[in-house]
């Protein structure tokens, strides 16, 4: 792919300059959702290894998803999407004719049973979501205490002994990854198993994944693998396959944890065009300064105006 040369230059803000000789290759995840089977082993392994407390216990009624979103107590989240494919209008995605669909619906109404199975006009999408470890991370930029920092692996980690729970990173993240843990008061998120990386072990979720949907490695190598996989999917007729977060020219400078998706990102609950909010900060500061000057002028006018 022609974009490979660009991918190799993917930077991550200040990293790796600040680490000098201690800098490691940038590590990350490639989550290939086309081979995710929705087993949630990643969610469990993550909770086990990182001592992430249990939270919601129950059924949401949203397919097999009882996690729903990443937050302080869920650092991996497996999404389940049941798609009713359109009737045979374009031929490339539909698997049933209109007659077949009508017959099946009649059977369903008569029996009261749902007869839809995978491959019969139904498509299952499953995807394990995780912190993106952005090249330009809003959470890191806005953190006033320096609790959030970039590691020698180019990943983004919260230091639990520094975070004072101000909560600024929570609405700053364009993916909604961070949140505050209730009784604890601090924010928590995926560390890309920083502790395991330092012992040359792969992160718990990647090790637990039975299908290799979650792949861990050097980011440049993962990009090559992903491009090859995308080509393979295209050649096999999966024209809906796309890479999400693999390009350094997106709004966050590319993800450290990127994905192969089979539909638009929003279908998985992901933003289609995420932008790091601090990209607009120079303009915001300019407006803030102008407003401060306007306030000073207003006060001066109010005080001096009456003297005439």
């Amino acid at each position, binding site marked *: 792919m022609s974009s490979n040369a660009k991918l190799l230059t993917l930077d991550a803000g200040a990293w790796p300059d600040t680490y000098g000789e201690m800098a490691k290759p940038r590590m990350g995840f490639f989550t290939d959702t086309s081979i995710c089977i929705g087993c949630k082993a990643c969610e469990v392994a993550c909770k086990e290894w990182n001592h992430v407390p249990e939270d919601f216990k129950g059924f949401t009624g949203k397919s097999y998803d009882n996690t729903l979103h990443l937050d302080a107590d869920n650092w991996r989240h497996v999404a389940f999407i049941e798609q009713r494919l359109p009737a045979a209008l374009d031929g490339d995605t539909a698997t049933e004719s209109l007659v077949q669909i009508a017959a099946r619906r009649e059977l369903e109404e008569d029996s009261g049973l749902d007869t839809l199975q995978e491959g019969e006009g139904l498509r299952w999408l499953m995807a394990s979501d995780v912190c993106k470890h952005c090249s330009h991370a*809003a959470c890191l930029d*806005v953190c006033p205490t320096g609790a959030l920092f970039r590691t020698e692996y180019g990943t983004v980690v919260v230091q639990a002994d520094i975070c004072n729970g101000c909560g600024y990173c929570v609405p700053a993240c364009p993916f909604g990854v961070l949140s505050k843990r209730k009784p604890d008061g601090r924010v928590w998120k995926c560390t890309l198993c920083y502790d395991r990386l330092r012992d040359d072990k792969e992160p718990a979720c990647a090790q637990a994944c039975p299908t290799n949907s979650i792949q861990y490695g050097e980011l440049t190598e993962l990009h090559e693998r992903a491009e090859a996989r995308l080509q393979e999917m295209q050649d096999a007729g999966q024209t809906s396959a796309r890479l999400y977060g693999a390009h350094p020219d997106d709004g966050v400078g590319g993800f450290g944890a990127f994905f192969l998706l089979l539909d638009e990102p929003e279908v998985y609950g992901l933003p289609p065009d995420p932008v790091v909010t601090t990209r607009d900060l120079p303009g915001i500061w300019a*407006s803030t300064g102008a407003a401060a000057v306007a306030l000073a002028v207003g006060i001066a006018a109010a*005080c001096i105006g009456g003297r005439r």
Partner: protein
Amino acid sequence: MSTRPEVPSATLETRPRRNGKGERAMVPEAEPRSYYDQPVIQEPVWTWEIPIYFFVGGMAGASAGLAYMAHLQGNNELSRRAWAISLAGIHVSPMLLISDLGRPARFLNMLRMFKITSPMSVGSWILATTGGAVTVSAAHAWTGVFPGLARSGRLVAALAGMPLATYTGALIGNTAVPAWHKARHFLPFVFAGGAAASAGAAAVLATPGKHAEPARRLAVIGAALEIGAAQGMEHAAGFEGEPYKKGLPGALSKLATATTAAGAGLLAKGGRRRSDRTLAKVGAGLLLAGAFTERWAIFRAGFKSASEPKYTVGPQRERIRKGESLGAARMPGNRPG
């Protein structure tokens, strides 16, 4: 009884594929697609202390400026009272902010570093600076202590007080919250107007009528800026700004505008005549209520826009559709996906 699962909103039928075959483009535009209508971003975790801080901190900052100007003009009656108002606000502010922290005992970590990329870090330093300077200035104005310190303290307080009143706009504008981020250039002006209005109004309430003229004028100027900037903001925020106009935040916003306009009207009319002074004080009360309600409306509108995926996804998908952005998802050949 049907056992068929409810079809999620995330189906191919709800919206035509952008890159799909041409014949499906005739399907009308629907709501942006989503994952079971789950929000894409997190709602902020800030609680009631924060909008109160926006109000109190803004009033403290603008009051420092008013106190300084009144001092320069020799209006000591007004100056002393404005310093006192600023002093009260500047010391309540950190209490509110610390109370909102998940780990209040670690509040000093806010001054662990200075980060220009974090308006909260910059704001912490501004608040700390203003706090010290206002304390010295107010102490001197009322007791005469620290005359030397107060000379520079007054100027520092007035200078730092201005961005103290406006940086809160940068604070919430610099987030992924659609209603706030889209309004980022207007928020500092709305907050500057509210700060001027509330500082003027508070001084009108505290100061004998014949000394309160500058405060009265400041309140009216501030109210005009607040209403004007808020109108501009609602217009500029477009679709992302819908929560400013609808639902509870929308109702609060309208209430704030009406209250502020009424208060400014009474204050503009309430002049030096004794009979008008009661009216002026009622007007000042209305202005304070209006400035506070406006902060609350803006705060709640942000939560609303964060909680509905359409405000996040819709404008982003629109950028991709218009070719203004490639987005983060790419099909082969670097086509947006």
